[in-house]
């Protein structure tokens, strides 16, 4: 139980509908950068179209790129925050609960006793922001892997050790 104080996890009562722990604040920044990167191709195409039609003089200036830019701005401001707010997790003595989805909500609980192996991944963006993704693999066909992105780097490793210790304790 030496790992318990690190998270205070084992002390929590089992309540699968309780309050969620928020993800690392940097995760919302990472999501924002992701959304911007996703919007760039659309902006590029709309700018291309814009220049093409300025040459022909069909529409007033900014008729294509303007709305696209506005929509992209709105999405970049709104979506990452909503997605961030919709996500959360809850770790208790013997299970991890992962909640995600802004429109399509999914609320998954994986008992540590059913975890086959654990991954901690970091993409380039995640490394820049100092966050990591924790992925739990189970033997079930549905939810064969449950991933929890946006954890602080150290926290993700700590959680991995925590779950691993639990597995070893159980199977001894």
């Amino acid at each position, binding site marked *: 139980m030496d790992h318990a104080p690190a998270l205070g996890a084992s002390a929590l009562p089992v309540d699968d509908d309780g309050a969620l722990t928020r993800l690392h604040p940097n995760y919302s920044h990472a999501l924002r950068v992701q959304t911007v990167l996703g919007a760039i191709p659309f902006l590029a195409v709309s700018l291309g179209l814009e220049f093409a039609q300025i040459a022909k003089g069909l529409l007033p200036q900014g008729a294509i790129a303007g709305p696209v830019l506005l929509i992209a701005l709105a999405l970049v401001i709104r979506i990452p925050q909503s997605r961030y707010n919709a996500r959360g997790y809850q770790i208790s003595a013997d299970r991890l609960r992962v909640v995600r989805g802004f429109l*399509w909500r999914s609320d998954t609980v994986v008992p540590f006793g059913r975890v086959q192996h654990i991954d901690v991944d970091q993409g380039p963006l995640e490394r820049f922001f100092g966050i990591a993704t924790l992925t739990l693999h189970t033997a079930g066909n549905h939810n064969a892997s449950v991933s929890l992105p946006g954890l602080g780097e150290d926290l993700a490793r700590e959680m991995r050790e925590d779950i691993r210790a639990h597995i070893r304790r159980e199977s001894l």
Partner: protein
Amino acid sequence: MSELRRTAPLSVAVGALGSIRSAIITGLAIAFSGIGDANRFWVALGVGTAAAAIGTFGAWLKWHRLTYAIGAEDIRVESGVLSRSARSVPYERIQDVSLEAKPLPRLLGLVAVKFETGAGGADDLSLQYLSTAEGERLRQLVRERREDEQTGQAEPGAVAAPAAQADEGDVLFAMGPGRLLTFGLFEFSLAVFAVLGGLLQYVDNVTDLDVWNVDLWWGWLKEQGSTVATLGPYAQALGVVAGAIGLVIVGSATGVVRTFLRDWGFTLTRSARGFRRQRGLFTRTDVVMPVHRVQGLVIGTGLIRYRFGWHGLSFVSLAQDAESESHVVAPFAQMDELAPIVTAAGFRLPDDATAWQRASTRHRTDKALLDSALFVLAAIPVGVFGPPGLFLVPLGAAVVAVAANLYAWEFRRFALGEAQIFATSGFMSPTTRIATRLKLHSVEIAQGPLARLRGYATVHCGLAGGSFAIAGVPLAEARALRASVLETIASTDYSRLDGPLDQALSGAQSGFSANLAAT
């Protein structure tokens, strides 16, 4: 025991016969193609003989270069003529050993032995072909080895059955010709027309007759049509009825023939080590499934056969059956015949005491509205642009969609037993799924925007080798369901289950007995 062995020498003969068969086709093609003028028959004969000889030599070479060894811990197979490959499969990873005898090998007394590891399809190790006796011996041996490994570490005496008895058990379910005939009639299929289409294509390729020439058929139809037209309306109506009856007869006959080919001599036996299924008229298969590998049950039925009380039972496990994800253990049986099989597998059928909970009525309403909305939307352009009256067709379909959904709700329900979880679903007939609570791996509550607004959810349970989802559960009930299932799961570690991957052999036996006790 680790000396190198070869597969049965007669398997060279099987390979040779196969290559001779393809050589004959090549020869015929040359003989009728016009290569080499007058001498073409000699050319064809020469090419055919050469092809057969090369094929036979290839078969011999392959046979010569394939060796297998039964080691202390694994089975090793080395194969390959030019590039060699060596594969080793540890005994504790072998899910089951199945024997398959296709018609030709069966005549020669050979079987293909396949070691199922759960890796799926092509990755499984198989030996083609061994003599029937050798195949049986190998299967017995693998089973003994696995038991040795398990008893070596688990409590001694947990496995009581001596291996010699392993294959002889009680017959749980068998289908005689009469049952097969009934089953075949319900397997009504018009697939024969697809086959006919394929044959036509073949005729088209081989002969000069251009079957895709529309004019040819049109001319033929007109000829027939004018004959029919002279007969008057009654005769025409009679013709339609006769045609329909013909379709029914052809469809039923196809079903019966296919069923006889697939399920002839269907026998399911229960022995100390597991279930054993044998079936097939020409291609005889023999599959063994250990009891503790069964992850869940699916009881399916059909639109019409349900009305006569016929059901089919399959086992969900990580090993795959021919083309589907679960093993059919009783394709066509009455409920009271299924009950002993279900009990033998360590499960229990829902009974009167089972507290069924229905899906949310809001879910029913939403689904009916959404499904019919599609047809109503389709009716608008049809009403505007189509001929008058045609818009009634999509509107009618919308009404049918509503009715079907209302009826489907009757079957959409679930229940939480002491050790199991039940769910049924289906449009016109119910499919029942049963899983052991202990053998679930995760529980997810999923909600779309509409579901959140209306307060219901779909509960997905992680089941190894299959799926288990319950749609339209009211949110509060979904949470309660998850909480109680998780309580069961979290109390036992994976390694103490008789897990599908057999990760911890030490816990295997205790997990099995705990599971049996729980059910």
